């Protein structure tokens, strides 16, 4: 029998404050990074002051992610479970993972130039989580009480993080391969380099997304008495998988590997955002876990 556990609303309030604190720090990092970017546009890619401010901006982002981590952690402790059972929690955990993976990746890949986009995106996510999706901590409904919640959702979050970074790179690629002669575009690496980087993040995202899909089917077989039933969320998970599968084919098809593949990346990521927002809130289905 599932025990009724006492939820800690005071700790949840503290968690919300920490997340809001992190949001403020993210805004600061976004401003620093945006300033550094404009400085690079006017003074060149290797401007010393701009690089220094970029470093500081990334450092501030690191501080924000640390504060956000404590916020996410306390939310989980307050609820006595993993902090990703409704839209608010999915947003704060998801944006934490996006930033964390991004910051770790900057040590291995030269992707500092999208820092402004990442921090801007995270500000948007936490901001809307706090204003639109906020709910008090609640216990899990019986359908969610399973260890697959830990596996299925956390991997979905990871996949989304990798897809997000790939999408930011693809957006720059599209801008760069257009006719615009904007000085801003000169700050970014070559189209070939962007293509490579975007591909590397997309393939990891795709592997994780495939796992999410399989894990979801295993769980659905346990909780919903069938492994696949074309529930609206299942439909969109399938659509997203198919778009990224098309992307992978595009990368090896002549004439498609550059701009067109980048467009597929953007379409795929738009489908992910659509799946997370519109499908969650307005479509009828079994995945009704927004908590709103």
């Amino acid at each position: 029998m599932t025990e009724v556990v006492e939820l800690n609303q005071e700790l949840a309030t503290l968690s919300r404050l920490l997340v809001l604190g992190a949001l403020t720090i993210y805004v600061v990092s976004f401003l620093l990074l945006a300033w550094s970017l404009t400085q690079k546009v006017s003074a060149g890619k290797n401007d010393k002051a701009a690089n220094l401010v970029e470093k500081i901006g990334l450092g501030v982002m690191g501080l924000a992610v640390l504060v956000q981590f404590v916020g996410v952690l306390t939310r989980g402790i307050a609820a006595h479970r993993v902090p990703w059972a409704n839209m608010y929690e999915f947003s704060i955990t998801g944006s934490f993972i996006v930033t964390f993976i991004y910051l770790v990746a900057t040590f291995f890949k030269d992707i500092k130039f999208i820092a402004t986009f990442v921090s801007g995106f995270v500000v948007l996510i936490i901001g809307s989580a706090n204003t639109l999706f906020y709910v008090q901590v609640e216990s899990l409904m019986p359908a969610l009480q399973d260890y697959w919640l830990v596996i299925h959702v956390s991997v979905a979050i990871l996949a989304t993080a990798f897809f997000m970074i790939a999408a930011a790179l693809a957006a720059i690629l599209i801008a760069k391969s257009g006719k615009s002669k904007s000085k801003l575009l000169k700050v970014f690496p070559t189209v070939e380099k962007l293509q490579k980087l975007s591909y590397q993040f997309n393939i990891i995202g795709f592997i994780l997304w495939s796992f999410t899909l399989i894990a979801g089917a295993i769980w659905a077989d346990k909780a919903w008495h069938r492994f696949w039933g074309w529930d609206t969320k299942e439909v969109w998970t399938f659509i997203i998988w198919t778009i990224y599968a098309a992307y992978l084919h595009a990368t090896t098809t002549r004439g498609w590997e550059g701009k067109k593949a980048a467009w597929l990346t953007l379409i795929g990521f738009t489908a992910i955002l659509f799946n997370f927002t519109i499908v969650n809130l307005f479509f009828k289905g079994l995945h009704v876990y927004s908590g709103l």
Partner: protein
Amino acid sequence: MASSQQSKYVVRKEYNEPIEAPDLTIRSWLRWLWRQLTSMKIALFLLLLLAAAAVPGSLYPQRSADPNGVVIYFRNNSDLAPWLDKLQLFDVYSSSWFSAIYLLLFISLVGCVLPRVAVHYKALRAEPPAAPTNLSRLPEYKKTAIDKADLSNAIDYFKSRKFKVVVKGNEIRAEKGYLRETGNLIFHISLLGVLISVGLGGALTYSGQRVLVEGESFVNNEAGFDSLSTGLLFDPKNLTPLSLKLNSFSTTYDYLNPSNYAKPIDFIAKVTSTVDGKKTDSTIRVNEPLMLPAAKVYLTGNGYAPDLVIRDANKNIVFAGPVVFLPQDSNMTSLGVIKVPDAPEQFGMMAFFYPTVGQLKTGALTSTHPYTWNPMLSMNVFVGSLGLESGMNTNVFDLNTHGMKQVAGGKSGIKAIKLTVGETKTLPENLGTVEFRGIKRFASLDVTYNPAELFVLLFAITTLFGLVLMLIIPRRRIWVMKTATTVEVAALAKSKDEALGKIVSEVTKALKKKKKK
């Protein structure tokens, strides 16, 4: 624009599958069609088409996932719905157009992958291919001046990194990463396996639904189910012989936390199953189906079943037993229908059950809590033919009041009959009495078995395995050419490979080393 035209031209020129103009013979036309179908561009196109075709299934209710939604859609859009139905928009995933797309995609897959299996099998046993005539045109190339270079250092380099190496005179051919193509083939063939297993599973599966009130039991055969759907190849005679009794059903509510006060935390159905004469007690919960041989039993719903006794004017019992009431909201306001065909004059009742009765501002009754803290039953009575003799299959949860006269509740002038547990009330029109004997819980159970499920899972796992191999492992070919005074090192990869340049420099460095003594 000039630049974009130029780039298009380059693409055309390099495009390695020129589109042949079809000539007039059927055979060559078919060959042309086959080549088109198995090309990468078509696979890409079909994938995008499949993604787009899946969208309407999330916009319109689907008969497979939400049959009730389809009924409601038909009711609200009576003009449009039949047209949408003709386009199979309520059965998207079994529609002819959706099936056509994925079948074409899989034909394309087979046509593309099978020849590659043969090619890859040969490549695995063959030596790395000879160097292209002009090495400097490869993506990575380095020419270094070394007098009478010794190739053995480079060979050692390749061998220590598990390359397949052959030396032909002054040329080294090395290749590595065959697992990339192996993974790619495993991935695509496994997808085919998933599709076939899903199809086969659909034909061999069954799924039966049964509502059981506490104390009731049922047998796993056609007559034992309220509804049973079977695949094309499943014979209901092959249903696993078993019986199941619902001993008790209970819900755990949270009374501790204001944020989810009175929300259900756990649903527990205690059952006794009998298989081959062996009785076993078990618990079924959400996420915890009962696993029996060739049958899985799931808990899919629950509610209240008020236990009623109805006596006619002469005190003869004309109806007795629990009646399943369907929950209408989260506080379990429930709706039930009682039909009394054996009374001297047929009558039926449409009744609401409120586990914890409360009143809305309008004066209407409602339930304010899902648990039976203050239960009440409220009944509207209709006199007249129940239509059971017509031979038509009538729904037990629906009372067709057409042609019946309402004698209690509504506009009949007589108030609806309200009962609390233990009470007996007199029915109007000398129909007799109704007694509310007690409350039982019911559980909706789903018994299902899909023999191909395990294969779907296995193929899904190999799909993932193949995917990881094909995306992570780089396939590389390296050539070293020696002349009297120079060494050329060149490399080619099947994918975007950042390490290629590094390998070429390392090989060159190895060649510069002095001979090992």
